[in-house]
């Protein structure tokens, strides 16, 4: 009896398409009867994902994280997160007999005594650098195409937190080998924390378990690095992807694409093949880099010692903007008042960098408030079609880039034979003025591109062919765009600034005034999309003979 029912139900769900009793069918049936997984396959198996190269950036981030988990798990089997002093006695001759922490010594052993150990260390480090970079680029893609708009604001925030956690993972991991360079990084963190008013000194002592550097910090960072932070990251990535499924992926404007549909390839088989294959490509590229290029050669730096340091010290790239911000503070920003020291040279950095990243986090809500836009958006903006947003982004990128460049101020000075002071003063100027300039330029470029789009829609492409009309006039032949190409150029909305409206008491509050002002600023200088009437009119202007036929 039981067997018969089983077969029937398997056939009902279409699981056993092969002949009943085949191994695949029985296995699928076995699992489904215990998990109800056929429902998930039905829901997700043919789910549509749109194709675009820029959608791969998030995938790169996800895959780098998987690579980090795999290589990191390998490293934990060899690494000793202890600052107990040992005398190095491994294969690397120049450091033989030198006292160092067990953390440094075991990292040396991974590099010089475990076959493939250096490879895994380098895979881990390169993948970490790629992880943060891919998240950053993914965020830029989301930002400049407006993919953070309703209903995806919360997913932007989750992604932003992941970006911060990725940097935290990077920094904690970077500090684990307890080498000279990472020790100096921790020294800077210690100095930063000590500069915080009221609690700074105590926070530093709690973090380091006493005076810097102490013997606790590596073990503590290790707990964060391999347990707490990865657990939070995994949970947030799960939420992030769940939201992608719930919202369905955005798509670029194109013929046939609407706000009510999503066009692309089904998960099974095409998307699975492409995305699954892409994981191996990312892994392969990271592996190739790790086998060819050295990263973080701690054997050149030696164990941490508070006294020596080499010129040209730099953090991993993603901490550069914060390190650069510290270098840009002018001399003397510190004062003593009422027997307490106020370290503005540190506080200003913490506040400015903090404000900057918080602004990034809440930007979707700011823009929604300014525009008053409460609709769902599933078709992306081409960056030119949201000129003010694109300009704000350009300003932010310029600000970040200036801080980032400042982290290499000494390298720039020595390589290009400039004075240290000159480099710093220039970067101070670009940090403060550059964003305004970038805003202006980016906005003008967007408007110019929109005008170009209008021109192409109305009059076609310039073909470069000059013909002489019977009347003797020379004209250039314009090639009209086809209707599919044209749709990409005209499918965007025109917005009007919010109007000032009195509330129920007939009053207009200051917040509303600010909002209306910002909305005016956000939507001024608009280029409207071409309308049918304009298109007809334009075609009337162009007799058939000058379009290329």
């Amino acid at each position: 009896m039981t067997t018969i029912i089983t077969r029937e139900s398997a056939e009902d769900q279409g699981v056993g398409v092969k002949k009943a009793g085949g191994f695949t069918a029985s296995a699928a049936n076995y699992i489904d009867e215990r998990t109800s997984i056929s429902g998930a396959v039905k829901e997700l198996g043919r789910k549509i994902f749109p194709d675009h190269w820029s959608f791969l950036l998030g995938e790169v981030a996800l895959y780098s994280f998987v690579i980090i988990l795999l290589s990191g798990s390998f490293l934990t089997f060899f690494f000793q997160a202890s600052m107990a002093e040992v005398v190095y006695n491994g294969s690397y001759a120049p450091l033989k007999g030198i006292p160092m922490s067990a953390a440094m010594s075991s990292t040396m052993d991974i590099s010089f005594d475990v076959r493939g150990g250096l490879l895994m260390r380098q895979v881990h480090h390169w993948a970490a650098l790629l992880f943060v970079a891919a998240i950053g680029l993914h965020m830029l893609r989301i930002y400049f195409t407006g993919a953070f708009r309703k209903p995806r604001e919360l997913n932007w925030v989750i992604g932003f937190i992941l970006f911060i956690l990725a940097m935290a993972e990077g920094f904690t991991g970077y500090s684990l080998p307890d080498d000279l360079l990472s020790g100096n990084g921790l020294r800077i963190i210690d100095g930063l924390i000590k500069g915080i008013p009221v609690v700074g000194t105590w926070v530093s002592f709690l973090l380091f378990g006493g005076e810097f550097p102490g013997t606790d910090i590596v073990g503590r960072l290790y707990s964060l690095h391999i347990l707490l932070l990865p657990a939070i990251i995994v949970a947030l990535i799960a939420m992030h992807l769940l939201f992608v499924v719930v919202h369905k992926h955005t798509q670029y404007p194109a013929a046939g694409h609407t706000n009510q549909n999503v066009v692309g390839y089904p998960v099974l088989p095409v998307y699975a093949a492409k995305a699954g294959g892409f994981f191996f490509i990312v892994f392969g590229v990271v592996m190739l880099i790790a086998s060819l290029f050295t990263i973080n050669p701690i054997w050149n730096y030696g164990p941490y010692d508070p006294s020596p340091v080499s010129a040209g010290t730099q953090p991993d790239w993603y901490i550069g903007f914060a390190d650069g911000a510290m270098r840009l503070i002018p001399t003397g920003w510190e004062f003593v008042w009422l027997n307490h020291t106020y370290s503005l040279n540190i506080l200003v950095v913490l506040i400015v960098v903090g404000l900057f990243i918080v602004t990034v986090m809440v930007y979707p809500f700011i823009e929604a408030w300014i525009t008053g836009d409460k609709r769902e958006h599933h078709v992306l903006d081409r960056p030119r079609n949201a000129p003010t947003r694109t300009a704000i982004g350009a300003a932010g990128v310029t600000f970040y880039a200036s801080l980032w460049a400042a982290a290499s101020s000494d390298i720039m000075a020595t390589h290009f034979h400039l004075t240290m002071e000159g480099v710093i003063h220039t970067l101070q100027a670009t940090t403060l003025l550059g964003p305004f300039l970038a805003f202006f330029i980016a906005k003008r470029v967007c408007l110019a591109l929109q005008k170009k789009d209008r021109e192409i829609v109305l009059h076609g492409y310039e073909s470069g062919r000059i013909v002489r009309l019977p009347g003797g006039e020379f004209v250039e032949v314009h090639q009209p765009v086809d209707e599919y190409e044209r749709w990409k150029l005209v499918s965007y909305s025109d917005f009007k600034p919010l109007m000032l409206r009195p509330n129920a008491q007939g009053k207009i509050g200051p917040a509303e005034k600010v909002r209306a002002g910002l909305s005016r600023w956000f939507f001024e200088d608009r280029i409207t999309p071409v309308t049918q009437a304009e298109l007809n009119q334009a075609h009337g202007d162009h007799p058939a003979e000058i379009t290329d036929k």
Partner: protein
Amino acid sequence: MAKDDNGAEDVTAADSPGAQLATSAASTAVVTRDALANPGFPPHRPRITDLEHKEERKAERTVYTLFYVSIVGSVFAIAAYMAFPIVAEDPGSVRLNNLFIGLGLSLALLAIGIGAVHWGKALMSDHEGVDERHPVRGTEPVRARAVEIFQQANEESGFGRRTLIRNSLIGALVVFPLPAVVLFRGLGPMDQDPVALLNETMWKKGVRLTMDPSGTPIKAADVTLGSSFHVIPEGLSEMGHGRLEEKAKAAVLLIRMDPDDLIETEDRKSWSYDGIVAYSKICTHVGCPVALYEQHTHHLLCPCHQSQFDVENHCKVIFGPAKRALPQLPIAVDAEGYLIAQSDFTEPVGPSFWERA
């Protein structure tokens, strides 16, 4: 219920689920009646592999060849693991081990990846599918039911009605994590006063200046004009416990200059010895070692954030984010001609902290 209906309607007005996905919906978007129409999907263009059987066969060959190549790569990586062992004290062997295992694995991974993507692009059906979108918010009946469930739960539990229970529960939930916070006090030492520790170093009257890291005492006569020494206090190099903590405060840079170049204040004239000056090596910005000495300008440079200090002028800051001059260690010479400290530093060394005055 009526209230809920209103609420729902308010949301609907701003955000009507029926029309919200349409381009013509509310807010500030300008509705153009005259907008161009979406032309729909362009005609599908078949691929070369759809049209020509030969190309399809070729693509198939490429894909399975790549998968076989991947197997070769994996086997190569295993072989390289054995064929390129690490030989003690031979960094070249590490390099070869790293390179060949890595290349084998790269080949294995890239071939799978490229093969799978090629399969997907060239051979699998390339007809795009279309999914319908629905508003993210739940449908009205679902939302109404959700509200109903919460109301029912509220009635059945009395959560809104029994305010004493509710408020005391909230209070308990707020307070219960506090012991956990207190437990973390144990991260820091119980028996130390951070401020006292930050205010003192190993230096005291009569302690000899010794070389870092050997611990050899330095004779004043051995410090030639223009030279600089990295210095630690006598006894530090033999310390076991707490060596790095002491060194992080006591590291000193010793420089001999032409006494005529030194601009010394009256009260510090006795702190140097015949042009030899000793300054804390720990940057007053965030604590990096100020290790780079420019001999001809007599400037010290911190490599971390480029603060510059003028040795001629009591190591005052001349550029960069630091504010305070490097603390000076008063030095003298003992009976045997060795350099000694006259006392500890007269101020805390290293980065600023709140309690520092």
